[in-house]
Protein backbone atom coordinates (compact mmCIF):
# COMPACT_ATOMS: atom_id res chain seq x y z
CA UNK A 1 0.00 0.00 0.00
CA UNK A 2 1.40 3.40 -0.96
CA UNK A 3 2.17 5.77 1.85
CA UNK A 4 1.46 9.49 1.79
CA UNK A 5 3.75 11.16 4.28
CA UNK A 6 3.05 14.70 5.49
CA UNK A 7 5.83 16.72 7.05
CA UNK A 8 4.29 18.55 10.01
CA UNK A 9 6.29 21.70 10.59
CA UNK A 10 6.84 23.20 14.03
CA UNK A 11 7.57 26.89 14.25
CA UNK A 12 8.15 28.77 17.49
CA UNK A 13 7.01 25.75 19.50
CA UNK A 14 3.72 25.45 17.64
CA UNK A 15 2.44 23.24 14.85
CA UNK A 16 2.15 25.25 11.63
CA UNK A 17 -1.52 25.21 10.80
CA UNK A 18 -0.74 25.04 7.11
CA UNK A 19 0.90 21.65 7.57
CA UNK A 20 -2.28 20.33 9.22
CA UNK A 21 -4.18 21.64 6.19
CA UNK A 22 -1.88 19.53 4.02
CA UNK A 23 -2.29 16.54 6.34
CA UNK A 24 -6.09 16.91 6.16
CA UNK A 25 -5.90 16.84 2.38
CA UNK A 26 -3.56 13.83 2.33
CA UNK A 27 -5.98 12.02 4.61
CA UNK A 28 -8.80 12.55 2.15
CA UNK A 29 -6.65 11.40 -0.80
CA UNK A 30 -5.59 8.37 1.23
CA UNK A 31 -9.18 7.47 2.14
CA UNK A 32 -10.35 7.83 -1.45
CA UNK A 33 -7.46 5.88 -2.96
CA UNK A 34 -6.78 3.30 -0.28
CA UNK A 35 -3.38 4.71 0.69
CA UNK A 36 -1.81 4.98 4.10
CA UNK A 37 -1.75 8.51 5.60
CA UNK A 38 1.26 9.08 7.83
CA UNK A 39 3.09 12.07 9.28
CA UNK A 40 6.55 13.08 10.40
CA UNK A 41 7.51 15.68 12.99
CA UNK A 42 11.10 16.89 13.16
CA UNK A 43 11.71 19.14 16.14
CA UNK A 44 13.65 19.43 19.35
CA UNK A 45 10.52 18.24 21.19
CA UNK A 46 8.84 16.32 18.39
CA UNK A 47 7.07 13.80 20.62
CA UNK A 48 5.04 16.49 22.42
CA UNK A 49 3.06 17.19 19.24
CA UNK A 50 1.86 13.69 18.36
CA UNK A 51 -1.49 14.01 20.19
CA UNK A 52 -2.41 17.04 18.15
CA UNK A 53 -1.25 15.50 14.89
CA UNK A 54 -3.23 12.27 15.28
CA UNK A 55 -6.44 14.33 15.40
CA UNK A 56 -5.97 14.84 11.68
CA UNK A 57 -5.97 11.21 10.71
CA UNK A 58 -2.34 10.11 10.49
CA UNK A 59 -2.23 6.39 11.25
CA UNK A 60 1.48 6.45 11.96
CA UNK A 61 3.57 9.36 13.20
CA UNK A 62 7.35 9.40 12.95
CA UNK A 63 9.24 11.68 15.28
CA UNK A 64 12.81 12.89 15.02
CA UNK A 65 13.95 14.81 18.10
CA UNK A 66 17.08 16.31 19.50
CA UNK A 67 18.98 19.53 20.00
CA UNK A 68 20.02 19.55 16.37
CA UNK A 69 16.43 20.47 15.49
CA UNK A 70 15.91 23.35 17.89
CA UNK A 71 16.45 25.87 15.10
CA UNK A 72 16.00 25.64 11.39
CA UNK A 73 19.20 24.58 9.61
CA UNK A 74 19.03 23.07 6.16
CA UNK A 75 21.78 20.52 6.83
CA UNK A 76 20.04 18.90 9.79
CA UNK A 77 16.55 19.02 8.30
CA UNK A 78 17.82 17.55 5.06
CA UNK A 79 19.57 14.70 6.80
CA UNK A 80 16.50 13.91 8.91
CA UNK A 81 14.22 13.91 5.88
CA UNK A 82 16.55 11.60 3.98
CA UNK A 83 16.61 9.19 6.93
CA UNK A 84 12.84 9.32 7.32
CA UNK A 85 12.44 8.61 3.63
CA UNK A 86 14.66 5.56 3.97
CA UNK A 87 12.62 4.29 6.91
CA UNK A 88 9.17 4.98 5.47
CA UNK A 89 9.68 4.62 1.73
CA UNK A 90 6.69 6.86 0.95
CA UNK A 91 5.19 7.32 -2.51
CA UNK A 92 4.54 10.96 -1.77
CA UNK A 93 5.88 13.47 0.74
CA UNK A 94 3.76 16.58 1.23
CA UNK A 95 4.91 19.83 2.84
CA UNK A 96 3.30 23.13 3.68
CA UNK A 97 5.23 25.73 1.76
CA UNK A 98 7.26 27.76 4.25
CA UNK A 99 10.71 29.36 4.02
CA UNK A 100 12.06 26.37 5.93
CA UNK A 101 10.67 23.78 3.54
CA UNK A 102 11.65 25.89 0.51
CA UNK A 103 15.16 25.78 1.95
CA UNK A 104 15.41 22.00 1.58
CA UNK A 105 12.96 20.95 -1.12
CA UNK A 106 15.31 21.20 -4.11
CA UNK A 107 18.25 19.58 -2.32
CA UNK A 108 16.04 16.80 -1.00
CA UNK A 109 14.64 16.11 -4.47
CA UNK A 110 18.15 15.93 -5.92
CA UNK A 111 19.34 13.68 -3.11
CA UNK A 112 16.39 11.27 -3.40
CA UNK A 113 16.19 11.54 -7.20
CA UNK A 114 12.56 12.35 -6.52
CA UNK A 115 9.86 14.04 -8.56
CA UNK A 116 9.05 17.46 -7.16
CA UNK A 117 6.61 20.32 -7.54
CA UNK A 118 6.65 23.42 -5.35
CA UNK A 119 4.02 25.84 -4.14
CA UNK A 120 0.91 24.19 -5.54
CA UNK A 121 -2.58 25.45 -4.78
CA UNK A 122 -4.14 22.01 -5.23
CA UNK A 123 -2.99 18.49 -5.98
CA UNK A 124 -4.07 14.91 -6.28
CA UNK A 125 -2.32 11.55 -6.32
CA UNK A 126 -3.50 8.50 -8.29
CA UNK A 127 -1.12 5.95 -6.87
CA UNK A 128 1.61 6.74 -9.40
CA UNK A 129 1.58 10.35 -10.43
CA UNK A 130 0.70 13.70 -8.96
CA UNK A 131 -1.44 16.17 -10.82
CA UNK A 132 -1.28 19.67 -9.43
CA UNK A 133 -2.29 23.23 -10.09
CA UNK A 134 0.10 26.05 -9.41
CA UNK A 135 -0.12 29.78 -9.96
CA UNK A 136 2.42 31.06 -12.51
CA UNK A 137 3.44 34.34 -14.14
CA UNK A 138 3.09 36.25 -10.85
CA UNK A 139 -0.13 34.32 -10.19
CA UNK A 140 -1.80 35.67 -13.33
CA UNK A 141 -2.42 32.15 -14.67
CA UNK A 142 -2.70 28.58 -13.43
CA UNK A 143 -0.43 25.84 -14.70
CA UNK A 144 -1.74 22.29 -14.64
CA UNK A 145 1.23 20.11 -13.88
CA UNK A 146 1.87 16.36 -13.99
CA UNK A 147 4.65 15.03 -11.80
CA UNK A 148 6.31 11.63 -11.91
CA UNK A 149 8.88 10.06 -9.63
CA UNK A 150 9.34 7.93 -6.59
CA UNK A 151 8.88 9.51 -4.19
CA UNK A 152 7.15 12.67 -5.35
CA UNK A 153 7.64 15.76 -3.20
CA UNK A 154 4.87 18.38 -3.14
CA UNK A 155 4.78 21.69 -1.30
CA UNK A 156 1.43 23.38 -0.83
CA UNK A 157 0.55 27.06 -0.37
CA UNK A 158 -1.02 27.89 2.97
CA UNK A 159 -4.79 28.23 2.91
CA UNK A 160 -5.20 25.83 -0.01
CA UNK A 161 -7.15 23.30 2.06
CA UNK A 162 -9.44 23.40 5.08
CA UNK A 163 -8.52 21.78 8.35
CA UNK A 164 -10.44 18.58 8.76
CA UNK A 165 -10.35 16.68 12.04
CA UNK A 166 -10.34 12.93 11.70
CA UNK A 167 -9.23 11.52 15.05
CA UNK A 168 -7.35 8.23 15.05
CA UNK A 169 -4.99 6.51 17.39
CA UNK A 170 -1.65 6.69 15.68
CA UNK A 171 1.29 4.43 16.15
CA UNK A 172 4.22 6.63 17.13
CA UNK A 173 7.65 5.66 15.85
CA UNK A 174 10.67 7.55 17.03
CA UNK A 175 13.63 7.64 14.66
CA UNK A 176 17.17 8.45 15.74
CA UNK A 177 19.04 10.90 13.56
CA UNK A 178 22.41 12.19 14.64
CA UNK A 179 23.69 15.38 13.09
CA UNK A 180 27.34 16.37 13.01
CA UNK A 181 29.25 19.25 11.46
CA UNK A 182 29.67 17.37 8.17
CA UNK A 183 25.91 17.30 7.86
CA UNK A 184 25.50 20.95 8.75
CA UNK A 185 28.37 22.27 6.62
CA UNK A 186 27.32 25.80 7.56
CA UNK A 187 27.27 27.67 10.87
CA UNK A 188 24.12 29.36 12.09
CA UNK A 189 25.54 32.31 13.97
CA UNK A 190 22.52 34.20 15.08
CA UNK A 191 18.81 34.66 14.50
CA UNK A 192 17.52 38.19 14.41
CA UNK A 193 13.90 37.75 15.43
CA UNK A 194 11.27 39.76 13.70
CA UNK A 195 10.30 42.86 15.60
CA UNK A 196 6.79 43.79 16.59
CA UNK A 197 3.84 41.75 15.50
CA UNK A 198 3.85 38.11 16.51
CA UNK A 199 0.73 36.95 14.67
CA UNK A 200 1.71 34.39 12.03
CA UNK A 201 0.45 35.91 8.77
CA UNK A 202 -0.11 32.46 7.27
CA UNK A 203 -2.56 31.72 10.06
CA UNK A 204 -4.14 35.10 10.68
CA UNK A 205 -7.90 35.36 10.14
CA UNK A 206 -7.51 39.01 9.32
CA UNK A 207 -4.62 41.05 7.95
CA UNK A 208 -4.20 44.80 7.71
CA UNK A 209 -1.54 45.50 5.08
CA UNK A 210 0.21 48.82 4.74
CA UNK A 211 1.72 50.24 1.55
CA UNK A 212 3.67 53.30 0.51
CA UNK A 213 0.64 55.47 1.27
CA UNK A 214 1.41 54.85 4.95
CA UNK A 215 3.98 57.58 5.22
CA UNK A 216 4.47 58.53 8.85
CA UNK A 217 3.97 57.61 12.50
CA UNK A 218 0.41 58.90 12.42
CA UNK A 219 -0.47 56.51 9.61
CA UNK A 220 1.43 53.63 11.22
CA UNK A 221 -0.53 54.22 14.42
CA UNK A 222 -3.79 54.06 12.50
CA UNK A 223 -2.69 50.75 10.96
CA UNK A 224 -1.83 49.37 14.42
CA UNK A 225 -5.12 50.54 15.85
CA UNK A 226 -7.14 48.97 13.04
CA UNK A 227 -5.19 45.73 13.40
CA UNK A 228 -5.75 45.64 17.13
CA UNK A 229 -9.51 46.28 16.84
CA UNK A 230 -9.75 43.39 14.36
CA UNK A 231 -7.22 41.21 16.17
CA UNK A 232 -5.47 41.16 12.82
CA UNK A 233 -1.88 40.59 11.79
CA UNK A 234 -0.02 43.47 10.16
CA UNK A 235 1.45 42.92 6.72
CA UNK A 236 3.20 45.27 4.33
CA UNK A 237 4.03 45.84 0.69
CA UNK A 238 7.58 45.69 -0.54
CA UNK A 239 7.72 49.47 -0.60
CA UNK A 240 7.54 49.51 3.19
CA UNK A 241 9.65 46.46 4.05
CA UNK A 242 12.37 47.67 1.70
CA UNK A 243 12.50 51.07 3.33
CA UNK A 244 12.57 49.50 6.78
CA UNK A 245 9.23 50.91 7.91
CA UNK A 246 8.02 47.37 8.64
CA UNK A 247 9.95 44.20 9.41
CA UNK A 248 11.00 42.24 6.28
CA UNK A 249 9.15 39.14 7.49
CA UNK A 250 5.87 41.05 7.03
CA UNK A 251 6.22 41.40 3.27
CA UNK A 252 3.27 39.95 1.38
CA UNK A 253 3.56 38.98 -2.27
CA UNK A 254 5.70 37.10 -4.75
CA UNK A 255 8.96 37.70 -2.88
CA UNK A 256 7.25 37.74 0.49
CA UNK A 257 4.54 35.57 1.97
CA UNK A 258 1.45 34.16 0.31
CA UNK A 259 -1.54 34.61 2.59
CA UNK A 260 -5.25 33.83 2.44
CA UNK A 261 -7.06 35.28 5.45
CA UNK A 262 -10.82 35.74 5.80
CA UNK A 263 -10.32 39.50 5.66
CA UNK A 264 -7.50 41.44 3.97
CA UNK A 265 -7.45 45.21 4.21
CA UNK A 266 -4.95 46.89 1.86
CA UNK A 267 -4.20 50.44 2.91
CA UNK A 268 -2.25 52.72 0.57
CA UNK A 269 -1.21 49.80 -1.64
CA UNK A 270 -1.39 50.26 -5.41
CA UNK A 271 -1.92 46.58 -6.25
CA UNK A 272 1.16 45.65 -8.30
CA UNK A 273 0.85 42.11 -9.68
CA UNK A 274 3.67 40.94 -7.41
CA UNK A 275 1.75 42.10 -4.36
CA UNK A 276 -1.58 40.75 -5.55
CA UNK A 277 0.13 37.39 -6.17
CA UNK A 278 0.43 37.05 -2.40
CA UNK A 279 -3.06 38.04 -1.31
CA UNK A 280 -5.56 37.43 -4.11
CA UNK A 281 -6.84 34.27 -2.43
CA UNK A 282 -8.06 36.16 0.62
CA UNK A 283 -11.78 35.62 1.19
CA UNK A 284 -12.80 39.26 1.49
CA UNK A 285 -10.56 42.07 0.27
CA UNK A 286 -10.97 45.71 1.26
CA UNK A 287 -8.85 48.39 -0.43
CA UNK A 288 -8.35 51.92 0.81
CA UNK A 289 -6.59 54.09 -1.75
CA UNK A 290 -6.89 57.73 -2.79
CA UNK A 291 -6.37 56.91 -6.46
CA UNK A 292 -9.69 55.67 -7.90
CA UNK A 293 -7.79 53.98 -10.74
CA UNK A 294 -5.39 52.00 -8.55
CA UNK A 295 -5.28 48.35 -9.74
CA UNK A 296 -5.90 47.10 -6.19
CA UNK A 297 -9.57 48.00 -6.72
CA UNK A 298 -9.78 45.32 -9.42
CA UNK A 299 -9.38 42.59 -6.82
CA UNK A 300 -11.18 44.34 -3.95
CA UNK A 301 -14.66 43.28 -2.83
CA UNK A 302 -15.03 46.63 -1.08
CA UNK A 303 -13.10 49.60 -2.38
CA UNK A 304 -12.91 52.85 -0.46
CA UNK A 305 -11.61 55.70 -2.59
CA UNK A 306 -10.13 58.22 -0.23
CA UNK A 307 -7.23 59.52 1.81
CA UNK A 308 -6.29 56.94 4.44
CA UNK A 309 -5.78 59.67 7.04
CA UNK A 310 -9.43 60.65 6.62
CA UNK A 311 -10.89 57.20 6.03
CA UNK A 312 -9.23 55.13 8.76
CA UNK A 313 -10.40 57.04 11.88
CA UNK A 314 -14.13 56.73 11.13
CA UNK A 315 -13.59 53.18 9.80
CA UNK A 316 -11.94 52.15 13.08
CA UNK A 317 -14.67 53.87 15.10
CA UNK A 318 -17.45 52.11 13.25
CA UNK A 319 -15.78 48.68 13.61
CA UNK A 320 -15.34 49.32 17.33
CA UNK A 321 -19.05 50.11 17.59
CA UNK A 322 -19.99 46.94 15.72
CA UNK A 323 -17.64 44.84 17.81
CA UNK A 324 -19.19 46.09 21.05
Amino acid sequence: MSTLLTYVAISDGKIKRSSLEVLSHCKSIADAGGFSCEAVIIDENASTFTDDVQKYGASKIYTVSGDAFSQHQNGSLLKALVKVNEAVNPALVAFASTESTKDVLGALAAQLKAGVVADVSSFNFDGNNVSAQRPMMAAKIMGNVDVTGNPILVSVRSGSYDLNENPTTAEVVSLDVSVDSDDLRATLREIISATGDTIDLNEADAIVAAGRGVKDEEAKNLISELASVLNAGIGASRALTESGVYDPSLQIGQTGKVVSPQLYIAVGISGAIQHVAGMANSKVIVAINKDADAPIFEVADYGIVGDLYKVLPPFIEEIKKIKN
Partner: protein
Amino acid sequence: MVPDVYAPFQIKDGELLMDGDRMVLNAYDASAVEEALVLTEKYGGDVEVICIGAAKASETIRKALAMGAAKGYHVQTNGDESYDSSSYAQILADFLKSKEYDVLSFGKQSQDTDSGLTGGMVAQLLNLPYATNAVGLEIEDGNLIVKRQGDTGQEMIALPTPCLVTCSNDMNEPRIPNLKGIMASKRKPVESIAVADMDLDAAALEAVSKVTSYSPVPARAAGQKFEGEPEEIASKVAQLLDTEANVL
Protein backbone atom coordinates in the same frame (compact mmCIF):
# COMPACT_ATOMS: atom_id res chain seq x y z
CA MET B 1 16.09 34.51 -18.52
CA VAL B 2 12.33 34.42 -18.05
CA PRO B 3 9.25 35.49 -20.02
CA ASP B 4 8.26 39.05 -19.14
CA VAL B 5 5.38 38.77 -16.67
CA TYR B 6 4.06 42.09 -17.97
CA ALA B 7 3.78 40.84 -21.57
CA PRO B 8 0.22 40.39 -22.80
CA PHE B 9 -0.90 36.77 -23.02
CA GLN B 10 -3.86 34.66 -23.99
CA ILE B 11 -4.91 31.17 -23.03
CA LYS B 12 -6.44 29.20 -25.88
CA ASP B 13 -7.49 25.57 -25.45
CA GLY B 14 -5.15 25.24 -22.51
CA GLU B 15 -2.23 26.66 -24.43
CA LEU B 16 -0.42 29.80 -23.34
CA LEU B 17 0.04 32.24 -26.19
CA MET B 18 2.52 35.04 -25.69
CA ASP B 19 5.34 36.76 -27.52
CA GLY B 20 8.25 34.34 -27.13
CA ASP B 21 10.69 37.17 -27.80
CA ARG B 22 9.73 39.08 -24.69
CA MET B 23 12.32 37.54 -22.42
CA VAL B 24 13.98 39.41 -19.57
CA LEU B 25 16.72 38.85 -17.02
CA ASN B 26 15.00 37.19 -14.04
CA ALA B 27 14.66 39.86 -11.31
CA TYR B 28 16.13 37.55 -8.66
CA ASP B 29 19.11 36.76 -10.89
CA ALA B 30 19.63 40.48 -11.49
CA SER B 31 19.96 40.82 -7.71
CA ALA B 32 22.38 37.88 -7.64
CA VAL B 33 24.56 39.56 -10.30
CA GLU B 34 24.38 42.93 -8.55
CA GLU B 35 25.49 41.53 -5.20
CA ALA B 36 28.30 39.55 -6.83
CA LEU B 37 29.52 42.79 -8.44
CA VAL B 38 29.35 44.67 -5.16
CA LEU B 39 31.34 41.95 -3.37
CA THR B 40 34.02 41.68 -6.05
CA GLU B 41 34.35 45.47 -6.25
CA LYS B 42 35.01 45.39 -2.52
CA TYR B 43 37.14 42.27 -2.16
CA GLY B 44 38.47 41.55 -5.65
CA GLY B 45 37.67 38.66 -7.95
CA ASP B 46 35.62 38.27 -11.07
CA VAL B 47 31.98 37.71 -11.78
CA GLU B 48 31.08 35.21 -14.49
CA VAL B 49 27.55 34.43 -15.58
CA ILE B 50 25.93 31.37 -17.07
CA CYS B 51 22.62 30.93 -18.80
CA ILE B 52 21.08 27.81 -20.30
CA GLY B 53 18.68 28.63 -23.09
CA ALA B 54 18.01 29.07 -26.77
CA ALA B 55 19.54 31.87 -28.90
CA LYS B 56 17.72 34.61 -26.96
CA ALA B 57 19.74 33.76 -23.84
CA SER B 58 22.73 35.55 -25.32
CA GLU B 59 20.90 38.87 -24.83
CA THR B 60 20.37 38.08 -21.17
CA ILE B 61 24.04 37.25 -20.83
CA ARG B 62 24.95 40.58 -22.52
CA LYS B 63 22.76 42.39 -20.03
CA ALA B 64 24.70 40.87 -17.13
CA LEU B 65 27.99 41.67 -18.87
CA ALA B 66 26.80 45.25 -19.34
CA MET B 67 26.12 45.43 -15.61
CA GLY B 68 29.76 44.53 -15.08
CA ALA B 69 30.25 40.75 -15.21
CA ALA B 70 33.55 39.76 -16.85
CA LYS B 71 32.61 36.69 -18.83
CA GLY B 72 29.59 34.70 -19.94
CA TYR B 73 28.79 31.09 -20.66
CA HIS B 74 25.90 30.25 -22.93
CA VAL B 75 24.73 26.66 -22.70
CA GLN B 76 22.58 26.34 -25.78
CA THR B 77 19.30 24.50 -26.03
CA ASN B 78 17.00 24.15 -29.02
CA GLY B 79 14.26 25.88 -27.13
CA ASP B 80 11.68 23.17 -27.72
CA GLU B 81 12.74 20.88 -24.85
CA SER B 82 10.35 20.70 -21.92
CA TYR B 83 12.99 21.20 -19.24
CA ASP B 84 12.10 21.83 -15.61
CA SER B 85 14.21 22.92 -12.63
CA SER B 86 15.58 19.43 -12.26
CA SER B 87 16.74 19.31 -15.91
CA TYR B 88 18.44 22.70 -15.58
CA ALA B 89 20.05 21.61 -12.31
CA GLN B 90 21.50 18.52 -13.98
CA ILE B 91 22.97 20.60 -16.80
CA LEU B 92 24.33 23.28 -14.47
CA ALA B 93 25.90 20.74 -12.12
CA ASP B 94 27.53 18.94 -14.99
CA PHE B 95 28.84 22.18 -16.46
CA LEU B 96 30.11 23.47 -13.13
CA LYS B 97 31.74 20.32 -11.81
CA SER B 98 35.02 21.05 -13.60
CA LYS B 99 35.00 24.81 -12.96
CA GLU B 100 36.63 26.71 -10.13
CA TYR B 101 34.66 29.21 -8.08
CA ASP B 102 34.24 30.51 -4.58
CA VAL B 103 30.53 31.24 -4.65
CA LEU B 104 27.75 30.09 -6.95
CA SER B 105 25.04 32.68 -6.82
CA PHE B 106 21.49 31.85 -7.96
CA GLY B 107 18.16 33.60 -7.97
CA LYS B 108 15.86 32.29 -5.27
CA GLN B 109 13.25 31.50 -7.90
CA SER B 110 12.32 32.08 -11.51
CA GLN B 111 9.95 35.02 -11.74
CA ASP B 112 7.60 33.24 -14.16
CA THR B 113 7.26 29.86 -12.42
CA ASP B 114 8.26 30.65 -8.82
CA SER B 115 9.66 27.11 -8.58
CA GLY B 116 12.65 27.94 -6.42
CA LEU B 117 14.21 24.51 -6.78
CA THR B 118 17.26 24.77 -9.03
CA GLY B 119 19.67 26.31 -6.50
CA GLY B 120 19.15 23.67 -3.81
CA MET B 121 19.35 20.92 -6.40
CA VAL B 122 22.68 22.12 -7.77
CA ALA B 123 24.06 22.51 -4.24
CA GLN B 124 23.16 18.91 -3.49
CA LEU B 125 24.46 17.58 -6.81
CA LEU B 126 27.80 19.35 -6.27
CA ASN B 127 27.77 18.62 -2.55
CA LEU B 128 28.17 22.29 -1.60
CA PRO B 129 27.11 24.06 1.59
CA TYR B 130 24.31 26.43 0.68
CA ALA B 131 21.76 28.94 1.91
CA THR B 132 18.54 30.12 0.27
CA ASN B 133 16.55 33.35 0.25
CA ALA B 134 19.52 35.58 1.02
CA VAL B 135 18.72 39.24 1.66
CA GLY B 136 22.31 40.23 2.37
CA LEU B 137 25.81 38.90 1.68
CA GLU B 138 29.19 39.70 3.19
CA ILE B 139 32.61 38.10 3.18
CA GLU B 140 34.48 37.46 6.41
CA ASP B 141 37.66 35.38 6.87
CA GLY B 142 37.04 33.54 3.64
CA ASN B 143 33.48 32.66 4.63
CA LEU B 144 30.38 33.89 2.87
CA ILE B 145 28.12 35.40 5.49
CA VAL B 146 24.50 35.12 4.43
CA LYS B 147 21.63 37.01 5.96
CA ARG B 148 18.71 34.72 5.20
CA GLN B 149 15.07 35.70 5.47
CA GLY B 150 13.50 32.79 7.34
CA ASP B 151 9.89 32.25 8.38
CA THR B 152 9.95 34.43 11.45
CA GLY B 153 13.27 36.21 11.46
CA GLN B 154 16.60 36.65 9.77
CA GLU B 155 19.30 34.03 10.14
CA MET B 156 23.00 34.89 9.96
CA ILE B 157 24.73 31.92 8.38
CA ALA B 158 28.44 31.43 7.71
CA LEU B 159 29.22 29.26 4.69
CA PRO B 160 32.73 28.03 3.98
CA THR B 161 33.67 28.40 0.32
CA PRO B 162 33.07 27.03 -2.22
CA CYS B 163 29.37 27.39 -1.54
CA LEU B 164 26.07 28.22 -3.15
CA VAL B 165 23.54 30.89 -2.29
CA THR B 166 20.13 31.82 -3.70
CA CYS B 167 19.25 35.50 -3.70
CA SER B 168 16.09 37.47 -2.98
CA ASN B 169 15.47 40.76 -4.73
CA ASP B 170 15.19 42.28 -1.26
CA MET B 171 18.98 42.28 -1.21
CA ASN B 172 19.68 45.29 -3.41
CA GLU B 173 18.56 47.45 -6.31
CA PRO B 174 20.26 46.02 -9.43
CA ARG B 175 22.14 48.66 -11.40
CA ILE B 176 20.85 49.69 -14.83
CA PRO B 177 23.70 49.26 -17.34
CA ASN B 178 25.02 52.57 -18.62
CA LEU B 179 26.23 53.25 -22.16
CA LYS B 180 29.85 52.54 -21.25
CA GLY B 181 28.88 49.20 -19.76
CA ILE B 182 26.81 48.30 -22.79
CA MET B 183 29.69 49.15 -25.16
CA ALA B 184 32.18 47.21 -23.02
CA SER B 185 29.88 44.18 -22.89
CA LYS B 186 30.24 43.73 -26.65
CA ARG B 187 33.94 43.02 -26.25
CA LYS B 188 33.59 40.63 -23.35
CA PRO B 189 34.02 36.90 -23.98
CA VAL B 190 31.03 34.58 -24.15
CA GLU B 191 31.77 30.87 -24.44
CA SER B 192 29.08 28.75 -26.00
CA ILE B 193 28.45 25.06 -25.68
CA ALA B 194 25.42 23.07 -26.80
CA VAL B 195 23.64 20.79 -24.32
CA ALA B 196 23.70 18.18 -27.06
CA ASP B 197 27.51 18.26 -27.01
CA MET B 198 27.72 17.75 -23.27
CA ASP B 199 28.25 14.32 -21.87
CA LEU B 200 24.75 14.06 -20.42
CA ASP B 201 22.35 11.18 -20.32
CA ALA B 202 19.09 12.25 -22.01
CA ALA B 203 17.07 10.36 -19.38
CA ALA B 204 18.65 12.42 -16.58
CA LEU B 205 17.43 15.59 -18.29
CA GLU B 206 13.83 14.38 -18.48
CA ALA B 207 11.58 16.81 -16.65
CA VAL B 208 9.96 15.32 -13.54
CA SER B 209 7.20 17.92 -13.71
CA LYS B 210 5.47 18.91 -16.92
CA VAL B 211 2.94 21.67 -17.46
CA THR B 212 0.21 19.93 -19.44
CA SER B 213 -2.05 22.95 -19.86
CA TYR B 214 -2.78 26.43 -18.57
CA SER B 215 -6.00 27.80 -17.15
CA PRO B 216 -7.09 31.29 -16.29
CA VAL B 217 -7.02 32.13 -12.59
CA PRO B 218 -10.63 31.93 -11.35
CA ALA B 219 -11.91 35.49 -11.46
CA ARG B 220 -13.05 37.19 -8.27
CA ALA B 221 -16.63 38.42 -8.24
CA ALA B 222 -16.84 42.11 -9.13
CA GLY B 223 -16.59 44.28 -6.05
CA GLN B 224 -18.23 47.50 -4.97
CA LYS B 225 -16.36 50.79 -5.01
CA PHE B 226 -17.32 53.66 -2.77
CA GLU B 227 -16.49 57.29 -3.40
CA GLY B 228 -17.62 60.35 -1.49
CA GLU B 229 -17.46 61.68 2.08
CA PRO B 230 -14.76 59.68 3.90
CA GLU B 231 -16.84 59.36 7.09
CA GLU B 232 -19.86 58.07 5.25
CA ILE B 233 -18.15 55.57 2.98
CA ALA B 234 -15.87 54.32 5.76
CA SER B 235 -18.75 53.48 8.07
CA LYS B 236 -20.81 52.10 5.20
CA VAL B 237 -18.06 49.60 4.32
CA ALA B 238 -17.55 48.69 7.99
CA GLN B 239 -21.27 47.88 8.24
CA LEU B 240 -21.18 45.81 5.06
CA LEU B 241 -18.23 43.82 6.40
CA ASP B 242 -20.46 42.95 9.34
CA THR B 243 -23.85 42.39 7.72
CA GLU B 244 -22.99 41.33 4.17
CA ALA B 245 -19.51 39.79 4.23
CA ASN B 246 -19.80 38.46 7.78
CA VAL B 247 -16.14 38.84 8.56
CA LEU B 248 -16.20 41.01 11.69
